[in-house]
C-alpha cells in the first residue's frame, strides 16, 4: 500500500515538474495527442487541416454582411458543440453590445436545440472593443475553460496585429481555443491559425420533404490556413448526432408562388408567372 501511494505521488510530482519545464521553455502545455486538434470528421477538410483545428490557437470566422453573420455564429457554436463532446469544461462567450444589437442575443432554447447545453456557457456582455479584448485575453489564460468565443463588429482599431499576436500567444500557452467571430468583416491579414468565411446556404432536405427546411447548412471558405492549403466546402450540421457532413449540391430554390386572383385580367404582372388555366369559384 505504502509503495503504491509513494509511486503515485512520484508520478504526480513528475507530471508537475515536466509541466513546469514546458512552461519555462515556452512550449505549450502538453496536451494529449488526441486532444490537440479538433477534427471535423470530413476527410478532405481534415486532410487540409492536418487532422483538425488546433486546440491551442486563435481562429477567425467572419461573414461579409450582418445578414450573413448568423451563419458564422452557427458555425462557431457547432465547433463549440464538437469541442464539448470530448471536453467537459465550460465555454466563455463575450459579445460586444453593437454585435448583440445588430444580430440578436444568443437564445437559450435555440442553443440547446443546436446541441449546446447553455449551462456550460458563461456569457459576458461588453460595451467597448477595449473591454472585449481584455475579457478575451483574460479568459484565454484561464485553464478552467475549454474555449472562448468573442464576437465583435467589423475591425476595431484596438484589435490590431499586436493584440492578435498576444491573443494567439495566450491561447498557445494555456491550450484554450480562441474563436474570434467578426460580424461584417473584410478579409485582412492576421495571425490566426485559420481564417474562415461563412455564407448561408439553403438548408438540406430532410426525409425527402422538399418543402421543409432541413438541417442548417453553410458555404465555408477556408481563406487562410497556416499549415496547409485552402478550399471551399458546403457543410451541414446534424444537431442530433452533433456532427458535420458534406451538404448535397443545392437544388435551385423556387420562390413560393401563388397564382394571383387577378390572373384573368389583361396585363398580369411578370411576378404572377404563367397562368395556365383558371376555374372561377363562382
Amino acid at each position, binding site marked *: 500500500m505504502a509503495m503504491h501511494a509513494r509511486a*503515485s*505521488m512520484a508520478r*504526480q510530482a513528475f*507530471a*508537475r515538474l515536466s509541466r513546469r519545464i514546458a512552461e519555462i521553455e515556452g512550449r505549450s502545455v502538453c496536451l494529449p495527442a488526441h486532444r490537440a486538434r479538433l477534427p471535423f470528421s470530413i476527410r478532405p477538410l481534415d486532410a487540409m487541416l492536418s487532422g483538425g483545428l488546433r486546440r491551442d490557437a486563435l481562429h477567425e470566422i467572419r461573414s461579409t454582411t450582418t*445578414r*450573413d453573420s*448568423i*451563419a458564422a*455564429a*452557427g*458555425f462557431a*457554436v457547432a465547433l463549440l458543440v464538437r469541442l464539448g463532446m470530448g471536453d467537459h*469544461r*465550460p465555454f*466563455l462567450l463575450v459579445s460586444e453590445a453593437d454585435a448583440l444589437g445588430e*444580430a*440578436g*442575443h*444568443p*437564445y*437559450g*432554447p*435555440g*442553443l*440547446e*436545440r*443546436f446541441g449546446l*447545453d*447553455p*449551462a456550460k*456557457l458563461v*456569457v*459576458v456582455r*461588453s*460595451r467597448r472593443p477595449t*473591454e472585449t479584448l481584455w*475579457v478575451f485575453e*483574460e479568459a484565454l489564460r*484561464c*485553464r*478552467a*475553460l475549454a474555449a472562448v468565443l468573442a464576437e465583435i463588429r467589423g475591425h476595431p482599431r484596438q484589435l490590431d496585429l499586436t493584440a492578435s499576436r498576444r491573443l494567439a500567444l495566450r491561447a498557445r500557452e494555456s491550450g484554450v481555443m480562441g474563436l474570434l467571430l467578426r460580424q461584417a468583416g473584410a478579409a485582412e491579414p492576421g495571425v490566426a491559425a485559420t481564417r474562415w468565411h461563412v455564407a*448561408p446556404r*439553403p*438548408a438540406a432536405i430532410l426525409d425527402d420533404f422538399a418543402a*421543409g*427546411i*432541413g*438541417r*442548417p447548412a*453553410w458555404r465555408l471558405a477556408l481563406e487562410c490556413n497556416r499549415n496547409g492549403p485552402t478550399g471551399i466546402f458546403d457543410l451541414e450540421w446534424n*444537431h*442530433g*448526432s452533433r456532427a458535420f457532413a458534406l451538404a448535397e449540391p443545392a437544388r435551385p*430554390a*423556387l*420562390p*413560393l408562388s*401563388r397564382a394571383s386572383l387577378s390572373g384573368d385580367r389583361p396585363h398580369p404582372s411578370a411576378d404572377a408567372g404563367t397562368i395556365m388555366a383558371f376555374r372561377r369559384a363562382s
Partner: protein
Amino acid sequence: MKSALRLAALDERARQLRLHPGQALADARAMIPALETAAEDCTADRVLLESLADWAERYTPLVALDADHGLILDITGTAHLFGGEEALVADLCTRLTAQGFFARAAIADTPGAASAAARFTELSVVPAGTAATMLAPLPLAALRLDRETVSAMDRVGLKRIGQIAALPRAPLAARFGTMLIRRLDQALGLEEESIAPRRPVAPLSAERRFAEPIAREDDVAQTLASLAATLAASLEARGLGARALELALFRVDGFVARTVVATSRPVRTPKLVLDLFREKFAGLGETFDAGFGFDVIRLAVNATAPQNPAQIDLAGDADSDAGLGQLIDRIGARLGPARVGRIVAENSHIPERAERFALAGDDAPKENFGPLPSFDPDSAIDRPLRLFTRPEPVEAIAEVPDGPPVRFRWRRVLYRVARAEGPERIAAEWWRNDDLTRDYFRVEDISGHRFWLFREGLYGRESLAPRWYLHGVFA
C-alpha cells in the same frame, strides 16, 4: 409661525453681541445696523452635514445626524485608539476648526446627555454617572424637545431640567406628553437609546491610520494588501469568506472615497482581494486623486458567506473551479456585475420568457433546459439560435388568413421566401387579456437565410390588420 424674517443661525461674533436664534431680523438690524445676512439654504446645509458625517466615520462607523446641525458618534470602545476621550474630543475639534468650522463637542454616557452638554455647556467630557448633576441647571430645550412643549412648560414656570426631574411623572406625562419623560430618561441613562447609524455597520473591518498622509498608488496598494491579510485571518478563524468588500479612503481635507467590490463566491485570500480591487480601479478609469493624501484607510467586509478551508490535492494544483470563479469575479469587478452571467431556463411557453440572463452572483435555484416533450433529435430545429429582445417589425405579404409570408421587407431589404414551415401557434398566457396570439413561421429565403417570423393576432378573430414581426434568426 409669525411671518417675519428670523435669524436661523449666528456666528461667534454675533453671539457675543447678544443676538440669539429666533430673533426677528428687524430687531437684530435695529441693534446692529451693519449686520451681514445670507438666506438659509437647508438643502446645502444638509449636504454639508452629510459630508461631515462621512468624514466623521474615521472615528467610528456609528455616525448619525442629530437635529440642528449636529452629529452623534457612538465611540464605545474606540476612545483608547486616540489616546483617551479628552484627546479624541481635542483631535475632533482641532480638525474641524482647521476645516473652517466652529464646532463644539462633548462626550457623555448617553446621546441625550452628550447632545445637551455640547450645546449648552462648555464641558468636553462629562464624567460617568454625573449626567444628572450636569443636566440640572440646563434649560429644557437641552432635552431635544419640540418648541411647543418647551414654551408650554415655560408658561407654567418650568424652565430648568432640575425642576422637572423632581416632579411626579404621571401628571407631567398627562399634561405635556410622554415624549418629555422619555427624553428625560434617555438623557439620564434610565432608558436605553441607541443611535441609528447612517450606513449599515460592516460585520468585519480593518483600518490603518497614518501620522503622515500617503498619496502614492503603490503605498495604497500595499496598505490594502496588509489590511486584506488582517481580515483574512479573522475570516478564516470564523470559517467565512467575503462576498462584498468596501474600501474607504479618508482624505486629509475631509473627502471620503468609497469603492465596493462584490464577488460571486466567498474569497479571503489577500492576493485575490487585491486583484479584484485593481480590476475595479482599472475599469473605473479615473485618475487617482489623492488630494493632499489619505490619513485613514479602512477595508470593511459588508457581506460574508461560509467558506471551507481550501482543499489542495496531492499534486498541489489549484482547484480549477476556483479559477473560473475568480475569472468571473474579476470580469464582474472590471465591467460591472450585471455584465457576466449564465443563461438559465424559465418555465414559460412564451419564447422571449423561456430564458433569463442570471447574473453571476445570483444564488436563486436555476432550472436546466431539459428537452421539451416534443423535441426529437431527428426533427428539424424549431427554435432560433439568436433572438431579438424586441421583435423587429417587418412588412410582409402573406396569404390570409393563415398563410406563411411570401415576401417581406426587413431593415429595408426585401427577402423572397423560398420555403416556409409553420404555423406554430403560441397563444398568450390566459391571464393576460390584451395580448394577441402569435403564429410563428420558420422561413428560408432563396439565398439560404433562415428567419423566425410571427404574425401577431389571428386574422379576423383578434385583429383586422395583423402585423408581422421578426423574432429570431436560425443558423
